[in-house]
């Protein structure tokens, strides 16, 4: 899922304080899982902004709302009236949702309440870690299910560097060396011989190097 972190409250306040009618708009899928941008968080943020507006003596009508996903047209139906009447929208979605709202409501200012941080998993309650960089040419089949693109700091494709020590990366003693994990996993699978094989060159043209990517289903 997409993980995001809420921006500092002051930064959000500075963005929106000039408006008169603001909708704080949650996105109840990915960023709700990390408790940063769901409809519940939209309610909390709207309440904090209303109190701040009261303290500052600024007259802003702030309402909160939200939908299940801000990256698909269908989900916007239930909030159409509210968004059309809004002078500005503070979106708690990831960067995709913010852009989607901005495209949909061309003349309405849309502000991001979150910094979109990474594609990750939930390794423990409240603990999210990066696991994918959407490079477009997945190598997990030959790396034992451990991604060197997202989990090796140098994105190395040919084994650990000299900074790997006792299974940890040189940038932090808390960070596992991805290539150590790959070797351990290949060993557990009885496929350590595969480590010696030289894989074909990775196709980086499918990464961002080829510009913004798109994908269209045929026949729809």
């Amino acid at each position, binding site marked *: 899922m997409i993980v995001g972190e809420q921006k500092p409250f002051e930064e959000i306040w500075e963005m929106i304080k000039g408006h008169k009618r603001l909708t704080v708009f949650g996105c109840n899928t990915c960023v709700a899982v990390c408790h940063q941008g769901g409809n519940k968080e939209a309610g909390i943020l709207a309440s*904090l902004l209303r109190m701040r507006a009261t303290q500052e003596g*600024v007259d802003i009508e702030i309402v909160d709302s939200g939908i299940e996903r801000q990256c698909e047209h269908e989900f916007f139906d239930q909030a159409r009236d509210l968004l059309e009447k809004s002078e500005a929208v503070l979106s708690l979605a990831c960067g995709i949702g913010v852009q989607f709202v901005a495209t949909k409501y061309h003349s309405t200012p849309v502000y991001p309440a979150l910094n979109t941080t990474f594609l990750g998993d939930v390794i423990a309650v409240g603990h999210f870690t990066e696991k994918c960089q959407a490079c477009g040419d997945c190598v997990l089949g030959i790396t034992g299910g451990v991604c060197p693109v997202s989990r090796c700091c140098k994105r190395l494709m040919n084994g650990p560097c000299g900074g790997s020590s006792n299974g940890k990366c040189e940038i932090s003693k808390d960070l596992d060396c991805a290539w150590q994990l790959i070797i351990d996993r290949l060993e557990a699978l009885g496929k350590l011989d595969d480590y010696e094989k030289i894989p074909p060159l990775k196709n980086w043209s499918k990464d961002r190097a080829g510009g913004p990517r798109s994908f269209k289903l045929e026949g729809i």
Partner: protein
Amino acid sequence: MIPDGEKTLERQGPEMLYEIPSDWDANIVAFACHYCAFAAADLAGVMRLSYAPNVKIVRLPCTGKLDHIYVLRAFERGIDGVFVAG
């Protein structure tokens, strides 16, 4: 929240600093668990014990039901303090 859902009351702003009157009492809302703290408050009533009238009790099925937004809404509507017991 659902679209066009609940709205809070009109705000009275900006907030101004002023002298606190001598007869002022803090307006407190108490969120109490049905099974312990609320039962204690109930027992106090049965025993005809008096307690401060500026504390308003809201019964929750469990204090685990307390939500951020309950506390924030209380403050938005002018409550001076929130007391959670459970």
